[in-house]
């Protein structure tokens, strides 16, 4: 306190206070100026609160056409719907839509949203419904559950599903907190638990074991994979050539590769690399001495049309059912290794083709299905003509992936999803017909010969046909029956992106080899969140249920070793406008924070580094100088931070003060470099009997960097 008796130090304290006040003013002022600018931008983007109900995003280059089509599409729903062009942001043109009161209910709103897919360049939409609360981050089944339960909450006018969100439109603003609380209770007190199981699991036993924990099951198809993807995956899996290996003394492991002769004239030679005609199989499952897997390199079709049967007549009994048997060699470091057993190859594709030409129940049914498929394929051909050349140039695999992602995303466009699935099935069916014809006439598969289905049903073509089970047939029939409706629905659509995907699927599946099917399966499995061999179940459970407890119970009850993954069921957010305003407020607070750091940094370097450096010259202990620097930094940054309302994620005022202390400490440590003080002048001042304050005021500060301190000091200095 004795320091404060000297005028200089009193003024120094005033300078610190002034720095905090002015710095806070500067930070808050900058943030407010930005806030005003953001407010204008928000208004031009979203209109005033309640002015519009929906914002439709379209690609900038489609702006004109999209505007016309949007007006037409919306007018077809209701003549009083108003559309106003908004501003263009980040390549997206926006259209603001005002809906009449009569449309503000769930079904009508979802119908309006579904119709938007027809708008050229459509790139999504955002509900601006007011007053509203949004629940986001929802799994599809959870989304439907939330929509149902939200609709039942008093004060809710409509619960509109879109993507992974539900926008809950309220009767009045006064109910917002109450409804938000009810929704929070619905989703935030719960968690979605995904149970990943081994392929051999009994799903019903799993369900029974977990029943005490479960509020409701969310799995859509019993595997947790979106339904369209699950069917697509099953279809692909059912078409891929299956390889079963019966091993000898040395069992195979999952992930290992084995080499088969394939269509090569002679068996693989140990030590040599596999030839292009060999088949490479990745082992996907091992059960005792039997392993099974998928072909990752090569195509087994020619092998199976003219199977290479081992001299002993076939070691596996199953081969008699219509496959081929070859010796399997382990693949070791890229070369053919020792033989590990006998492999049986089975191609459901060929078997299905043979079945198409057969008599009896299966033959007749399949003939009808093929007719349906032909119709769908014709429609597909017409639609494929709409695909833009630009889209067709893209890599097939990329677009196949994108298509799968679109399928998985759901996004409310169920019809489109199912259509794509149906088209995929129809393409597969047509391909099978071509193969059937090729088999019958001796032509190569895929040469375009569309002869009627006349295939030798018996052993003449290389083996008897596979017997289909009724479930498999029914599944395929249902899918193809749905295809007709779905294809019709798609006819109305003009979304170039989806059509591009269609064309890819047509091209891709039409020429699929076994390794390509395996590749596609992997894409589907990745997108669907797991392999067919690893079923998944999803449950909604209370937040307090521990996944590890579920795992223990499951392990004890079924002996399975599941992986259990828990995630929040959803998050309740304010409306899009409130969210944007909140986001802008975050930006404002962040800007204030940055300005606060700049102000504190500048003050430390310009004003205080000089004083800290001088204190060292005045023989103040180094630790005391460093401590003074830290305290100064904490005061400056903490003060400016608190007064300006600055905020950064995970950094409150206390954190800012700590950061300021660190900044101040660094300034103190580097003070002599940041603001060099002439030690000999300080020494001269001491030798003349001057006080430290006099030395700082008359000698040190005037020679230091210009700042607030030098400005204030100038008024009281005696020697100018």
């Amino acid at each position, binding site marked *: 306190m004795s320091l404060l008796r000297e005028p200089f130090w009193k003024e120094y304290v005033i300078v610190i206070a002034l720095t905090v006040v002015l710095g806070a003013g500067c930070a808050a002022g900058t943030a407010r100026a930005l806030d005003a600018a953001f407010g204008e931008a928000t208004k031009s983007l979203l209109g005033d609160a309640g002015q519009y109900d929906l914002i439709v995003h379209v690609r900038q280059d489609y702006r004109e056409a999209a505007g016309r089509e949007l007006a037409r599409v919306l007018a077809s729903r209701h003549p009083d719907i108003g559309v106003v062009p908004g501003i263009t942001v980040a390549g997206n043109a926006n259209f603001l839509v005002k809906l009449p009161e009569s449309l503000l209910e769930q079904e009508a709103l979802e119908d309006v949203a579904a119709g938007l897919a027809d708008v050229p360049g459509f790139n999504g939409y955002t509900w601006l419904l007011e007053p509203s609360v949004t629940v986001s981050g929802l799994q599809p089944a959870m989304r439907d559950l939330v929509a149902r339960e939200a609709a039942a909450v008093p004060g809710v006018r409509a619960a509109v599903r879109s993507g992974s969100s539900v926008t809950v439109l309220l009767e009045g603003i006064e109910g917002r907190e109450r409804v938000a609380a009810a929704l929070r209770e619905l989703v935030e007190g719960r968690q979605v638990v995904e149970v990943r199981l081994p392929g051999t699991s009994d799903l019903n036993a799993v369900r029974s074991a977990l029943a005490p924990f479960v509020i409701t099951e969310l799995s859509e198809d019993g595997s947790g994979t979106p339904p369209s993807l699950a069917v697509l995956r099953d279809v692909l899996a059912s078409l891929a050539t299956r390889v079963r290996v019966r091993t000898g003394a040395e069992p195979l492991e999952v992930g290992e590769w084995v080499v088969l002769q394939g269509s090569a004239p002679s068996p693989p030679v140990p030590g040599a690399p596999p030839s292009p005609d060999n088949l490479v199989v990745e082992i996907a499952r091992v059960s005792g001495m039997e392993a099974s897997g998928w072909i990752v390199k090569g195509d087994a079709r020619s092998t199976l049309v003219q199977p290479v049967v081992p001299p002993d007549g076939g070691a596996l009994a199953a081969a008699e059912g219509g496959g081929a048997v070859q010796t399997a060699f382990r693949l070791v470091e890229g070369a053919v290794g020792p033989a590990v057993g006998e492999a049986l190859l089975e191609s459901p594709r060929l078997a299905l083709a043979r079945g198409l030409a057969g008599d009896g129940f299966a033959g007749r049914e399949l003939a009808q299905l093929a007719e349906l498929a032909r119709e769908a394929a014709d429609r597909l051909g017409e639609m494929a003509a709409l695909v833009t050349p630009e889209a067709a140039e893209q890599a097939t695999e990329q677009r196949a992936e994108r298509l799968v992602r679109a399928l998985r995303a759901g996004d409310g466009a169920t019809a489109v999803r199912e259509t794509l699935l149906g088209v995929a099935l129809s393409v597969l069916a047509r391909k099978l017909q071509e193969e059937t014809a090729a088999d019958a006439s001796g032509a190569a598969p895929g040469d375009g010969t569309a002869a009627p289905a006349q295939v030798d049903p018996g052993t003449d073509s290389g083996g008897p046909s596979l017997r289909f089970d009724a479930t498999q047939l029914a599944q395929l029939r249902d899918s193809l029956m749905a295809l007709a409706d779905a294809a019709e629905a798609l006819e109305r659509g003009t979304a170039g992106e989806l059509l591009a995907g269609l064309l890819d699927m047509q091209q891709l599946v039409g020429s699929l080899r076994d390794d390509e099917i395996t590749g596609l399966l992997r894409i589907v499995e990745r997108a669907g969140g797991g392999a067919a061999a690893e079923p998944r179940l999803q449950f909604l459970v209370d937040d307090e249920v521990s996944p590890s407890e579920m795992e223990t119970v499951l392990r004890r009850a079924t002996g399975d070793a599941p992986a259990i993954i828990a995630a929040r069921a959803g998050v309740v957010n304010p409306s899009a406008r409130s969210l944007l305003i909140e986001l802008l407020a975050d930006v404002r607070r962040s800007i204030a924070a940055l300005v606060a750091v700049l102000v504190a940094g500048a003050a430390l370097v310009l004003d205080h580094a000089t004083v800290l450096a001088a204190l060292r010259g005045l023989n103040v202990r180094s630790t005391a100088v460093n401590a003074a620097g830290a305290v100064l930094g904490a005061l400056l940054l903490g003060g400016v931070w608190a007064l300006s309302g600055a905020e950064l994620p995970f950094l409150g005022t206390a954190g800012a003060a700590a950061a300021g202390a660190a900044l101040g400490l660094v300034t103190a440590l580097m003070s002599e470099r940041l603001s060099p003080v*002439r030690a000999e002048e300080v020494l001269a001042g001491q030798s*003349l*009997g*001057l006080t430290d304050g006099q030395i700082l005021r008359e000698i040190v500060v005037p*020679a230091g960097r210009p700042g607030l301190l030098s400005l204030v000091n100038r008024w009281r200095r005696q020697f100018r």
Partner: protein
Amino acid sequence: MLLHVDKVHKRYGRRVALAGVSLSVAPGETVAVMGPSGCGKSTLLRCIHRLTPWDEGEIYFDGAPVGPMRPAEVRRLRRQIGFVFQHFHLIERLTVLDNILLGLVLGGVPKEEAVDRARSALARVHLQAEESLYPAQLSGGQRQRVAIARALALAPRLMLLDEPTAALDPILVGEVLEVMEDLARTRSTGMLVVTHEVRFAMRAADRVVLMDGGAVVDDGPPEEVFARRRSRIAQSYGRLLVS
């Protein structure tokens, strides 16, 4: 006795700078401290001026111990003991006059009186005409004379001069020595001068204190010290004097 240094010890880590140094200066007396570089001469002066703390012993100024003084007393002590540095230590942004006024005005001397005293001090070092110049505009000798004037203006009872000519071009040394000899002759102030100038010591000093290895090795009138050549350093200075 104006100044009495009593068995003062000072170490910098393991290095001994002062090993029990004792000496005294009477009012108006000029004492030359001589010795090889690093023998502790400058450290002794800094201890007397309380610019450097010492480890053992005591220093008395006007009979009062300097060690236990509080900061305000130290500042008063410094105003009574002028200090002239080897490298002048002038304030570069101030004029010659302001450099001299600085200690006076901030020490509480009224402005008019301070200006009179500053000009008077400048006259004693023959620099009246240069009062409005800045240090950078002066020669080394002139700068050192300004530094002497700055110390003199405070009317000190004792002046400590730390090798005032060591940083000067040999041609400029004479003008500074002349001023110092004038000061010694007037006996208005006691002077403790660290120097290597043997002739200055012979002509102006009342006593010579020879130091070596942080200790006083001889103390007495210059002619006697150089004549009896009691120490190795005295022999060296004696030879220098003869040559």
